[in-house]
């Protein structure tokens, strides 16, 4: 302390600032307005958006971010910004000369060094100078040669054209690919090439044509790896965004299902799409999702996992506030509830926002099952979470503080077994927990088919040997095993992580203060979870004020009873189905054949 004081006058202020409080400016928290209320807010937000043209939008966001995070900007980044803005100034529009354009492409892709970029010069119909450019490997060469080069090189292809720039004519009449469009900005050109499209340029034009030639190797649609179910669809997402969107669209055949594309990542320009149903999802949520994704200023965006960390509300929370799923059917059902799905290219997962806590306990399994079975497996899952989080802690509290609760015979058996074990129970349990986590982690990393075997054998042998070597008591093995089973039964992979970490907290709390400590830890964690929000929706919403009772939160009611969409999401259309959704129950089955036609338009 003396040191600090000596150092400078500032030292005093540093010291003072440790015990005084400075109020922080807090930006207004996002919330979802009620459907009627939302309009005014939306208008104001749109105004904001109007003010900032797309080019300045990013800058504004970076300024905001910098303020919020107080992150110093490294010199390299400053430099980068400078150079990029320099490029933009020079090349905001496309030059009319073919040489300059070739030069531009070569420069942007570091052509002589970079071997991937292909620039093929040729004469259209033998007269007009032109070139096509694409990234080799990203584009499908057969498409290019058959449907772009061949027609262009054919002698008579552009003979009738009378315009100065032949590209317009070519776009309309010559190119034979499905998608082709005009591109007027150099940045877009680069982006198109990066995506695997082929860009065509002809001398004298001030734009390019981008023809869809994407064709790279990808994995086929496979079974979901982490969310397997017994009954129901067995399709999972793969790494291609387009395929993933198709998988969802295949389930929701609705013209209002909107896919919006955004790019994230300064350098890798990853494609990310937002899926929602227009007229069902609350526009404020869509707006907010776009605002957050547009507000990401980062170098590199690998996939949805990174995206989640950039846009989630509570960075320090132990449970995820964004639902991650690799199942198209699950994504679809969430979209149909008025939520927004975010898909990022390159990762076989969809992120769904906003979610409430109980979504983390759901699987599509119970949607496919009858409600009795669905409710049963859900209750099992709640038990699983409770066991996985609490059991070791409860055991520590039990044997450390509340020994009177153990049935006497069992307790004497435990003591007898522990008689030769030198370690305290806390150490025993930590030892076993750590080794269990080790086995788990190793089981994933060990290649191929050995993985599973090693897990089981490792656990069995380790447990047995530890007991025989008097390192742990046998009861503990049961505790750890049940805990492990519990954590495997949690359907959400991220939640399972959270529970595994919380378990250690409970162990420490129990060791420190017994059940009193566990209860305090429980209250604290509950309070923190209750205070969390996922995109404006209270994370634990069925405890909050609610207008309509959900029939699919903790227990699952018969499917015809689930008349409303989840209340907290505030969808524009709250009703899922009419009060009587099974119209046939109200009718006389004998005369049903005659009436059938009349009721067709009512049927939902």
């Amino acid at each position: 302390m003396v040191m600090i004081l000596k150092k400078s006058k500032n030292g005093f202020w540093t010291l003072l600032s440790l015990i005084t409080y400075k109020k922080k400016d807090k930006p207004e928290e996002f919330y979802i307005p009620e459907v009627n209320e939302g309009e005014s807010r939306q208008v104001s937000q749109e105004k904001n958006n109007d003010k900032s043209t797309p080019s300045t939008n990013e800058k504004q966001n970076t300024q905001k971010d910098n303020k919020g995070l107080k992150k110093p900007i490294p010199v390299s980044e400053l430099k980068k910004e400078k150079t990029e803005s320099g490029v933009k100034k020079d090349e905001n529009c496309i030059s009319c000369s073919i040489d300059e354009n070739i030069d531009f492409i070569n420069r942007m892709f570091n052509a002589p060094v970079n071997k991937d970029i292909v620039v093929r010069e040729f004469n259209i119909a033998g007269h007009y100078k032109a070139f096509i450019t694409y990234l080799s490997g990203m584009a499908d060469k057969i498409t290019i040669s058959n449907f772009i080069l061949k027609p262009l090189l054919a002698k008579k292809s552009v003979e009738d054209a009378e315009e100065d720039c032949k590209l317009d004519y070519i776009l309309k009449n010559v190119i034979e690919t499905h998608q082709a469009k005009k591109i007027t900005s150099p940045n877009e050109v680069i982006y198109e090439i990066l995506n695997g499209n082929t860009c065509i340029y002809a001398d004298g034009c001030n734009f390019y044509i981008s023809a869809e030639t994407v064709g790279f190797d990808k994995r086929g649609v496979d079974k979901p790896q982490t969310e397997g179910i017994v009954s129901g669809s067995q399709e999972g997402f793969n790494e291609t965004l387009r395929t993933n969107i198709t998988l969802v669209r295949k389930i929701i055949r609705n013209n209002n299902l909107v896919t919006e594309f955004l790019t994230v990542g300064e350098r890798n320009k990853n494609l990310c799409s937002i899926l929602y149903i227009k007229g069902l999802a609350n526009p404020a949520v869509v707006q907010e999702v776009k605002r957050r994704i547009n507000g990401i200023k980062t170098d590199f965006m690998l996939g949805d996992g990174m995206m989640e960390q950039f846009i989630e509300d509570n960075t320090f929370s132990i449970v995820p506030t964004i639902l991650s799923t690799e199942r198209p059917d699950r994504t679809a059902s969430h979209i149909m509830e008025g939520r927004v799905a975010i898909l990022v290219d390159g990762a076989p997962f969809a992120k769904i926002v906003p979610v409430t806590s109980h979504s983390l306990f759901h699987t599509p399994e119970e949607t496919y099952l009858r409600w009795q079975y669905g409710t049963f497996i859900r209750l099992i899952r709640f038990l699983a979470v409770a066991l996985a989080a609490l059991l070791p802690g409860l055991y520590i509290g039990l044997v450390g503080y509340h020994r009177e609760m153990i049935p006497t015979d069992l307790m004497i058996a435990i003591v007898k077994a522990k008689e030769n074990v030198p370690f305290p129970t806390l150490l025993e349990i930590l030892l076993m927990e750590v080794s269990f986590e080790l086995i788990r982690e190793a089981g994933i990393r060990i290649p191929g088919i050995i993985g599973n075997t090693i897990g089981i054998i490792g656990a069995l042998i380790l447990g047995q040997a530890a007991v025989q070597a008097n390192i742990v008591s046998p009861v503990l093995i049961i505790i750890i095993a049940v805990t492990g089973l519990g954590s495997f039964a949690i359907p959400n992979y991220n939640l399972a992580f959270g529970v595994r970490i919380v378990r250690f907290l409970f162990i420490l709390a129990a060791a420190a203060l017994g059940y009193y400590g566990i209860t305090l830890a429980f209250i604290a964690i509950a309070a923190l979870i209750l205070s969390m929000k996922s995109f404006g929706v209270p994370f634990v919403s069925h405890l909050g004020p609610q207008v309509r009772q959900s029939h699919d939160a903790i227990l699952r009611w018969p499917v015809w009873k689930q008349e409303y969409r989840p209340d907290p999401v505030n969808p524009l259309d709250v009703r899922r189905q009419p009060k009587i959704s099974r119209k046939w129950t109200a009718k006389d089955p004998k005369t049903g054949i005659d009436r059938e036609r009349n009721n067709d338009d009512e049927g939902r």
Partner: protein
Amino acid sequence: MMKEDNFGTKEAVSLATLAIITKVFYTSPFVIVNSLGTAAWYGTLVSCIVSLLVFLLLYQLMKRFPGDDLQAVFMKVLGKVLGRIVTVLFSVYLLYYAGMNLREFLEIIKAYILPYTPPSYIMITFLSVVALFAFLGLEVLARFSYLGLWIVLITMGLLLTFGSTYYNANYIKPYLGYGIDKTIIYGVLRSAAYQEFILLAFIMGSLQGLKNFKRAGIGSILLSGGVISISLLLYLMMFQYTVGSENLSGLFQISRSIYLSRFFQRVEAIFLFIWVISSVVTVAIAFYISISIYCKALNIGDHRPLILPFSFLTFLVAFFPKNLTETVEFHMLFIRQYSSFVVYGIPVLVLVLSLILGRKRVESRNEKV
């Protein structure tokens, strides 16, 4: 002003109910049984009814100033200076209340569960959770109390059901206890046991209207009256008035006495958590409102910087009593019995004053215009 989130009637009811019924877990049953004998179970209903009347008076007061918190009403009726003094008085009282509840909790925990753990250790961990609640704000507290009330009521129901092997309905004879006159006098005096409904008036702003306030107040008083009465009745049916006036914590003694079978006995530890939950919520709400009205009275914008100092103060207050005897015989007696003169007296006086002075919300609006 600081941001206070809104919540519904259910949350408000559970907030007040949990705060009121917490005392049944602690020394309150033996004190009541000691004074009222077999009449304890309906003696508390007398207190309940008196409190209901006071609440209706309070409602009349709040009705004259729709949308205002109680402290704003104080300011408007008593003037700025006196209003502030009264508000700060309430703030100090609530701090004392929080501290004493913490102390009572500590005494029970030390007596039954953790006899050798240092008190400061228990209190600091407890207060850190309370401070967390104060930091997260009223909405989280209210929503947690809604969850907590369910847990507490269900577990209490289980606890009382498990104890049913001992119940003997004859133990509530003779029905009049120590005499009907004594029951009524003590019941009226003890109406301070339901004083926590007054906290609702301080968070009017979050209650979304007078109608919710009325519903929350009446609902919480009646619900907690029922819960306390039933648990006292069953307590008497188990322990008689004789042993009943000896047990330090009545309900905990029931949980210690549960004997269902060879393997289901001595299970008090699993019931411990309702003691902790209800105490945490009670102390947290008194603590939060103490800070909140202090801030409002002195025009402090953000309550968060005050959490640490106020926690420290609560910690100090909890160390006031030298021993268990002083806690029970002086401090708890004051809070549960005589504090009604302060807590009920002031709002009623303010109501009388506002009637005499004819002050209403409408006037103030006109002034502003």
